[in-house]
């Protein structure tokens, strides 16, 4: 039974998709039950792999159709689940279940729900398949299904012009990314005549020729397009904004994570190229740029979901930086942050969805004062916002702290400083959201909004509780989840050995199966419980003030008057009536850095040509870099 678990966890979702396609619109109850069963089964099968793989340290392999390798040559398609795959698989399948649960009420007013669920299950299944596969071409197929389903779901509300437009942009950029991955796959196949990851890992061990380097560069860029690392990120905000929130959550929670997994698998296991300082620098630099540009763009947004999308890009920057550091601490921080990002960003997208469900808009300029009408959503939002900003005792603090520490120890002190600044800016922009959506004055048209239904609150609460758990018991989470995965990342010989046999692996690796021992101390995290109590008191005070109306800014009708807010010194009548709107909380900062923001607004032009050009330019730069420095 155990050896069939990987394929079962993939196939249950695919079968669910086909059954849902057969049912169509006929029976809504039956359809929802099947969606729930399929996602839940997949989750259970993934959980069942926890004991043999993470606790006992085995690696599961499964040859499709029992085509086992003959004479060290892989013929069939293999699935291989090691600790890294399972770590990703666990939180991905969990977020699939939660998103399905949330969807039932969230999209009840839409038409074409059967298609929604078919695509939803296809996307989930392809991500699971991508995580568990041990075959390079299969990775391409799965990521293509994933892109395809994501595009269709982006354009799901196709009566809205911006949804269709975002779908088109996503398909154009996504296809270019997939084409790069396919091209790299083809080149690698032509060189080694195999597609099995383990066999390739053996063949590529210390084997840097012009051809393999070319393929490496294309692979990195291809997956970077799927991760939405910075010069290729333009399509992400457009897509995240218009997709239904349950899908935006999956975009940042599983689609992005799958691509992060792809990068990890390719550079750590297949190429084993992270011992080169040039590759380390590339990832750390790229991650740092990504986190900085993501967060500065987020400061300038006035749509709830678009702002979250830019934060998603920024947080992925942390993950890339963490895994780029290659120290045990760095990888641990990166993986921990990947897990945390799925939790808190999923939570925040669900909050945005709840606001949309209740009020019908996510425009921060129109919202306000929802705390009185939707207290639970507000509380959940605050938990998510504090987690993403890295405030103790929430999970974001732990992973960010590990990344600060790791980057400082690895000698990247400027990166530590930038990461800290980015964290502060993240908090700043969430204060803005809290101020303009949940506190402040309640607009008249939202006088009668109600809290979202229970089935939407349950997934939110589960994620909120997990956010707190991840912050209070970081050492347990690290010990039982992150460290095994980090071990698997650093020890690629074992992956090869289990898949292709000891004789094959010993041809390439001198020391087999000796996992490096990771020991580190999580400094700076003394008393989580004390922090929690402190936070509770602060939150209570905050809520009290908000409920009593302390944050209500005076509304005035002089908005059209000449604005004095950009003057260095201002006072008197004009300053009295200078209108600082909810989304305009950081006007001073924006004004001081207006050249930077003008430039950024210009390059986010919304044209497919420009977006494609940025992908091509990235590819060119990475090719040049890799050919110059990777030896």
């Amino acid at each position, binding site marked *: 039974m155990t050896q069939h678990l990987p394929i079962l966890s993939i196939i249950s979702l695919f079968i669910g998709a086909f059954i849902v396609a057969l049912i169509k619109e006929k029976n809504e109850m039956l359809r929802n039950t099947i969606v729930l069963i399929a996602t839940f089964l997949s989750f259970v099968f993934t959980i069942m792999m926890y004991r043999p793989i993470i606790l006992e340290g085995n690696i599961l392999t499964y040859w499709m159709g029992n085509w086992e390798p003959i004479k060290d040559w892989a013929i069939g398609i293999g699935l291989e689940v090691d600790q890294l795959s399972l770590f990703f698989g666990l939180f991905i399948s969990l977020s699939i279940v939660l998103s399905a649960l949330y969807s039932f009420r969230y999209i009840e007013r839409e038409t074409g729900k059967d298609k929604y669920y078919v695509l939803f299950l296809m996307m989930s299944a392809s991500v699971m398949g991508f995580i568990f596969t041990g075959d390079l*071409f299969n990775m391409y*197929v799965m990521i*293509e*299904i994933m892109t*395809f389903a994501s*595009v*269709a779901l982006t*354009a799901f509300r*196709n*009566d*809205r*012009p911006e949804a*269709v*437009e975002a*779908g*088109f942009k996503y*398909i*154009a950029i996504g*296809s*270019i990314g997939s*084409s790069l991955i*396919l*091209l790299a796959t*083809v080149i690698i*196949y*032509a060189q080694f*005549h195999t*597609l099995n990851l383990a066999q390739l890992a053996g063949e590529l061990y210390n084997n840097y020729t012009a051809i393999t380097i070319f393929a490496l560069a294309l692979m990195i860029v291809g997956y970077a397009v799927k991760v939405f690392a910075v010069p290729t990120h333009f399509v992400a905000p457009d897509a995240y904004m218009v997709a239904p929130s349950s899908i935006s959550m999956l975009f940042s929670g599983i689609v992005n994570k799958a691509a992060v997994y792809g990068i990890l698998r390719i550079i750590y296991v297949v190429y084993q190229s992270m011992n080169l300082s040039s590759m380390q620098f590339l990832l750390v630099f790229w991650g740092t740029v990504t986190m900085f540009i993501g967060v500065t763009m987020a400061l300038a947004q006035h749509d709830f979901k678009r702002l979250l999308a830019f934060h998603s890009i920024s947080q992925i920057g942390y993950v890339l930086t963490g895994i780029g550091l290659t120290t045990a601490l760095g990888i641990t921080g990166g993986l921990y942050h990947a897990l945390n990002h799925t939790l808190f960003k999923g939570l925040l997208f669900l909050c945005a969805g709840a606001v949309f469900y209740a009020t019908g808009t996510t425009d921060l300029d129109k919202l306000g004062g929802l705390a009185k009408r939707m207290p639970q959503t507000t509380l959940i939002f605050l938990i998510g916002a504090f987690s993403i900003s890295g405030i103790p005792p929430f999970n974001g603090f732990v992973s960010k702290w590990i990344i600060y520490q790791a980057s400082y120890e690895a000698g990247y002190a400027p990166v530590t400083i930038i990461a800290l600044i980015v964290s502060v800016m993240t908090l700043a922009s969430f204060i803005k959201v809290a101020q303009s959506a949940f506190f402040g004055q309640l607009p008249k048209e939202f006088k009668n909004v109600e809290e979202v239904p229970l089935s939407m609150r349950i997934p939110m609460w589960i994620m909120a509780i997990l956010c707190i758990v991840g912050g209070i018991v970081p050492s347990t989470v690290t010990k039982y989840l992150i460290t095994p995965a980090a071990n698997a990342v650093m020890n690629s010989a074992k992956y090869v050995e289990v898949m292709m046999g000891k004789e094959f692996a010993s041809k390439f690796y001198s020391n087999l199966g000796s996992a490096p021992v990771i020991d580190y101390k999580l400094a700076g995290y003394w008393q989580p419980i004390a922090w929690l109590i402190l936070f509770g008191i602060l939150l209570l005070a905050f809520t009290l003030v908000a409920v009593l109306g302390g944050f209500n800014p005076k509304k005035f009708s002089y908005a059209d008057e000449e604005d004095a807010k950009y003057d260095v010194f201002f006072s008197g009548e004009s300053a009295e009536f200078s209108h600082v709107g909810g989304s305009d909380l950081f006007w001073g900062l924006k004004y001081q850095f207006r050249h930077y923001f003008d430039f950024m607004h210009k390059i986010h032009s919304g*044209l*497919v*040509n420009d977006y*494609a*050009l940025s992908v*091509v330019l990235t590819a060119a730069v990475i090719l040049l870099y890799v050919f110059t420095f990777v030896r």
Partner: protein
Amino acid sequence: MTKIFILSSLSLVFVGLYGVLTRKNIVKILIALNIIETGINMLLVAFGYVEGGITPILQSDLSIANLDKMVDPVPQALVLTSIVIGLGTTAFALSLAMRYKDTHNSISIRATDEEGVNV
């Protein structure tokens, strides 16, 4: 022979990229994306090509004796998968384009004079 295949397929990739970067008509962009895909598929087939090769089916003693001369069958299987994926993507993208026409009343990504944009 293989070199010609490789060069022509890579040039197809670049032609496609040029199209994606310069065209404003979304149908033309989709065609350009298709050209990129075709180029890569052709590359895949070219890599499996053996000059004067025989079909990769074990049917007689002669074919077993000439295993080296067999054409590699794997790329052809892969290219079929790739073509099917491309077909799905294109069909969906074209339906998006129709939808785009309905909502934007144009098939241009920006108001231009390019020919064929105003339908």
